[in-house]
């Protein structure tokens, strides 16, 4: 079972060009807001029509611009969890779920709705209208409604963004259990790398309407490849490198010409060097990749200390190096040497 998507759509000045293949899994679509994530989901669900391309689900063509095929959403068997859930406000929780089971005979429908209400712990909420439900309950009703329609694919549009952080984690656990029991294809759209990291094995990064090849989540963290993917994966430090005679060594002109050894060789299209803030660590001055720095600023975060460092010899407007330490590792200093292991130096396009 697989979902193959290769579509293009122009929307005013915005151009969407997305292609990926999802198997029986939870595939993440990771992108900043406005990068075309929701539009991609709407095209797959059949709510929006792409200009060109093809969408195929398990050998069934849902959309093909060349053959002029465009199935209506009703025939696609693709469930869509809207960001604000889009529950029918004039119906109770139970009626909303029953609406999803509309294709079943009446007796079967009642049984199915009762099962889903139990599965989603909504027995007490069944008679309430959406406005009387909490955010978490609303999401469960919306999921129940989707499951009642027995889809082959579930699309989740920022499923946790409408919930407050206290509820969020419990909802996340419930959602991942539910998706595990669903067993079909799930696309999980998010801008939050943590959420994606915890719930998805593979990820497709979307940057300004363009999709990158699907990679594993650990692969994305270890070698994001592009600046936008590195940003989405949470990388905080960027500086412009230049090549040296040794392909594994780069020089940073903005940081006083310091030389850094990298885990991967230089390539012609490299534009930026990325360093994750929590891989910067205090070091001896003779350590590999040692960077002597002045402390520019110290910011106390909840569980960590953020130290902004100015490498010695840096040009005036050079980007500061951000280091994040557990609080007990920061002893306070005006100057110190830090280092970054070569495998944590990210060469980015």
């Amino acid at each position, binding site marked *: 079972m697989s979902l193959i998507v290769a579509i293009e759509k122009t929307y005013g000045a915005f151009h969407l060009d997305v292609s990926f293949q999802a198997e029986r899994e939870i595939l993440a679509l990771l992108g900043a807001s406005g990068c075309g994530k929701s539009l991609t989901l709407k095209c797959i669900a059949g709510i929006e029509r792409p200009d060109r391309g093809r969408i195929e689900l398990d050998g069934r063509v849902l959309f093909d611009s060349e053959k002029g095929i465009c199935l209506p*959403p009703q025939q696609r068997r693709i469930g869509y969890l809207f960001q604000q859930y*889009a529950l029918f406000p004039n119906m109770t929780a139970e009626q909303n779920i029953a*609406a999803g089971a509309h294709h079943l005979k009446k007796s079967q429908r009642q049984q199915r709705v009762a099962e889903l209400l139990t599965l989603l712990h909504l027995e007490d909420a069944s008679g309430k209208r959406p406005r009387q439900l909490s955010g978490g309950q609303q999401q469960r009703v919306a999921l129940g409604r989707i499951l009642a329609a027995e889809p082959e694919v579930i699309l989740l549009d920022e499923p946790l963004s409408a919930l407050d952080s206290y509820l969020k984690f419990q909802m996340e656990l419930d959602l991942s259990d539910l998706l595990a029991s669903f067993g079909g294809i799930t696309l999980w759209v998010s801008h939050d790398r943590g959420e994606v990291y915890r719930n998805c094995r593979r990820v497709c990064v979307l940057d300004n309407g363009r999709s990158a090849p699907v990679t594993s989540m650990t692969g994305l963290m270890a070698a994001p490849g592009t600046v936008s993917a590195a940003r989405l994966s949470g990388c905080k430090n960027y500086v412009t490198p230049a090549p040296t005679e040794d392909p594994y060594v780069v020089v940073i002109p903005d940081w006083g010409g310091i030389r850094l050894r990298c885990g991967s060789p230089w390539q012609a299209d490299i534009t930026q060097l990325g360093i994750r803030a929590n891989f910067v660590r205090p070091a001896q001055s003779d350590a590999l990749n040692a960077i002597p720095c002045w402390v520019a600023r110290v910011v106390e975060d909840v569980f960590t200390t953020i130290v902004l460092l100015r490498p010695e010899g840096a040009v005036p407007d050079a980007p500061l190096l951000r280091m994040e330490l557990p609080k007990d590792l920061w002893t306070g200093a005006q100057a110190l040497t830090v280092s970054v292991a070569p495998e944590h130096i990210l060469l980015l396009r």
Partner: protein
Amino acid sequence: MDWFPLFNSLRIAAISTVVIFFSGIFAAYYIAKLPPILKGVLDVVLTLPLVLPPTVVGYLLLRLLGPTRPLGAFILEAFETKLVMTWWSAIFATVVVAFPLMYRTARGAFESFDRDLADAGRTLGLSNTWIFWRVRMPCCRQGILAGAVLAFARALGEYGATSMIAGYTPGRTATISTTVYQLWRTDNDALAFRWVLVNIAISAVVLLAVNLLERRSRSAGRRKAVG
């Protein structure tokens, strides 16, 4: 006092409200989906009767439906029926004049309807007809009801176009508004005043009904907000 004008006004207003209710919703739903230019043109055409003097509407209707005009002549020949100067001729006038009120309020209600609700329904496999009657209409109920009540009130008070197309025949085509004018013209001030009072009473009841509807929807909203 002969109550025929009251009865006649009410049946004309009631029938035209039914006609306007469905045609107004139909127009509002489908015109919203048209390309912008066509939508703009149709919007102007359908709203025009709201701002035109009713006598102009009456004139245009007579040009269309009069016994010597194409449509009127055709109907006269085919069905041996005159389209003007009967009690139901006034329905043509009230439908045209009151239609924009229903059309515009229904369109406003449909425009504020959350598109995601319809899209969610479609991805669940629900037909567009089901979504229309079970979700869109209930969600837009207040606006549509308000439009229907306003259209009814306007149809009840229509004078200009009605008097031109249905005339004034006591006991046959007389409505409250044409009766008031006729009584005043013939110096029957006392009776004219009584009909004026009847008219004011009906209008007040209609407005009261609109206000009650609005208050009920507002308090329903408050209850939901608290829950």
